[in-house]
């Protein structure tokens, strides 16, 4: 989508709901969905006399995110109140962090598609800050009423604010995907855009190429899917480019995206923007995160997708495969656990991304619920690689282990006598037998109908119950045919 006249500048504000048992500031159950207004308590409703008490686990989750993104964690940060009147905001203010957030700086790595020769090249998108806050409830509108459900009110959020360093809608989507992968690696959020546990507002501006100053930006609110995120940014870029082409100014505004028309439209302009009257939250002490807390969180951080992708490529995998394996931490961990011999990395990868994921998808299970242990898969791959099992039989064995994880591949092989037959004499004997049983097909083959060769290989494989080493079968068939031709030539002579 090149708009060659202007450089596109995008910054994202991403809200991510932290996965905790209770809300940010009260001991009220916190889960998605369910009957309206069933997960509310006195604090959630903003009843008089109630006070916020921050959730240690929510802060710990937020801390881990800041640490993996390389942010500077502030030893002392402040809660702040942001005021506006809205029925889904129970107290008339939202508790957030304003001028003293708990984390500043940091960056998220996204793929650098400009570096065509290096599929693992990345571009660092620097962050301005991350802060914690509580969510609002949800309003729906019907007839003469607007109706409010406070189940979501008070849910713990982190807001990750990037610098305006993204240069296209595709990069914005990449950024969201990387961020989603990271928070899922950390296990701190479901990060599901459709369910609203990952949400995004995009600040978009255009400027002439080479201009030092940023253009006037507009903020597109509530982008709740990857598809809409890209489409909305593209639509907004078109709108702003049209204005600039006509010599009209872009007015700083808050926009919404209409997917039906594929257009952004102005919700309100900056002049109508509220004065939020931020001030330090007096109901809570400042938040202190000391060195011991940071060290404890640091000690439990997982390895991140980009370093793991590089390690996988170093093992001989393609960048594509490395991307598939690291899309989920569970899958990457599974691969690591199953990799007992680095020389088998490629084979293991193929088994995981091929057969295993097929079985998981068919049974609608995630990697975390995979019945085949990494050790069992490693054993299976080992059996294939050392020639004990044919690939075809190995698939059958994997099926069986998937159905009954109490069995090991080796045990199944022994029980059913599935070892690949690699004894050339035995295979030659089988080939002779099959050839003798099918004189008609033999005649066709000898007459030059080479297609029939496959029929004989198939017959041998069937006779061996799939155990015959296919390469040896091919070789034996060739030998037997040569013998027959030779014998026939003698007769004709």
């Amino acid at each position, binding site marked *: 989508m090149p708009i060659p006249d202007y450089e596109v500048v995008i910054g994202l504000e991403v809200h991510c709901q932290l996965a905790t048992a209770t809300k940010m500031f009260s001991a009220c159950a916190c889960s998605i969905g369910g009957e*309206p207004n069933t997960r509310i308590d006195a604090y959630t409703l903003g009843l008089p006399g109630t006070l916020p008490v921050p959730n240690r686990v929510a802060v710990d989750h937020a801390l881990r995110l800041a640490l993996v993104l390389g942010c500077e964690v502030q030893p002392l940060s402040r809660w702040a109140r942001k005021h506006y009147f809205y029925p889904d905001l129970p107290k008339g203010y939202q508790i957030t962090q304003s001028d003293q957030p708990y984390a500043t700086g940091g960056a998220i790595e996204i793929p650098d598609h400009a570096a065509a020769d290096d599929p693992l090249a990345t571009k660092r998108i620097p962050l301005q800050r991350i802060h914690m806050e509580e969510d609002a409830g949800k309003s729906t509108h019907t007839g003469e009423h*607007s109706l409010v459900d406070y189940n979501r009110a008070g849910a713990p959020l982190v807001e990750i604010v990037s610098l305006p360093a993204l240069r296209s809608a595709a990069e914005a989507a990449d950024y969201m995907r990387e961020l989603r992968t990271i928070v899922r690696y950390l296990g701190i959020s479901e990060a599901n855009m459709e369910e609203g546990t990952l949400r995004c507002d995009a600040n978009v501006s255009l400027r002439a190429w080479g201009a030092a100053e940023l253009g006037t930006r507009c903020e597109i609110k509530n982008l709740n899917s990857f598809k809409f995120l890209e489409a909305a940014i593209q639509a907004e870029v078109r709108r702003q480019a049209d204005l600039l082409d006509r010599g009209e100014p872009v007015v700083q505004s808050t926009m919404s995206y209409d997917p039906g028309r594929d257009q952004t439209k102005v919700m309100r302009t900056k002049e109508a923007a509220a004065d939020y009257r931020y001030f330090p939250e007096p109901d809570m*002490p400042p938040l202190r995160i000391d060195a011991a807390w940071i060290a404890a969180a640091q000690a439990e951080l997982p390895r991140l997708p980009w370093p793991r992708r590089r390690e996988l490529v170093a093992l001989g995998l393609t960048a594509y495969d490395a991307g598939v394996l690291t899309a989920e931490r569970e899958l990457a961990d599974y691969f690591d656990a199953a990799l007992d011999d680095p020389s088998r990395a490629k084979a293991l990868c193929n088994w995981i991304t091929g057969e295993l994921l097929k079985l998981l998808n068919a049974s609608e299970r995630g990697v975390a619920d995979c019945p085949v242990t990494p050790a069992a898969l490693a054993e299976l791959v080992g059996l294939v690689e050392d020639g004990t099992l044919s690939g075809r039989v190995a698939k059958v064995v994997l099926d069986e282990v998937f159905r009954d994880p109490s069995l090991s591949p080796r045990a199944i092989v022994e029980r059913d006598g599935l070892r690949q037959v690699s004894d050339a004499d035995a295979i030659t004997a089988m080939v002779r037998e099959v050839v003798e049983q099918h004189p008609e097909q033999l005649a066709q083959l000898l007459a030059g109908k080479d297609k029939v060769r496959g029929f004989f290989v198939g017959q041998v494989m069937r006779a061996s119950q799939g155990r015959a080493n296919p390469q040896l079968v091919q070789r034996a068939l060739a030998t037997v045919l040569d013998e027959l031709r030779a014998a026939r030539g003698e007769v004709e002579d």
Partner: protein
Amino acid sequence: MPDAASPLVRELASLARLELSAEEAAGFGAQLETILGYIQRLQSVEVEGVPEYLTAEQVRSGLRDDLERPELDAEQALAGVPVVRDRLVAVPRFKD
């Protein structure tokens, strides 16, 4: 000193979602002017380099464990809501 006359009072009342009669607005305007005049004295205090007071600064972290603590059931909580429709809190319809 800011002009605490009616336009300011109107703006503040709007921010605070307070309906005010003309009489109230005029009365509050005059009183705010007096009070703000008194508060002006703070401008004479030397505060260079002085940090803002840290409220509730203390040893205790003030954090809680992530444990659910059933406090009141949702029915009790909803009992005091002025207008409820199908478990939802109802207000006059507004646009997003």
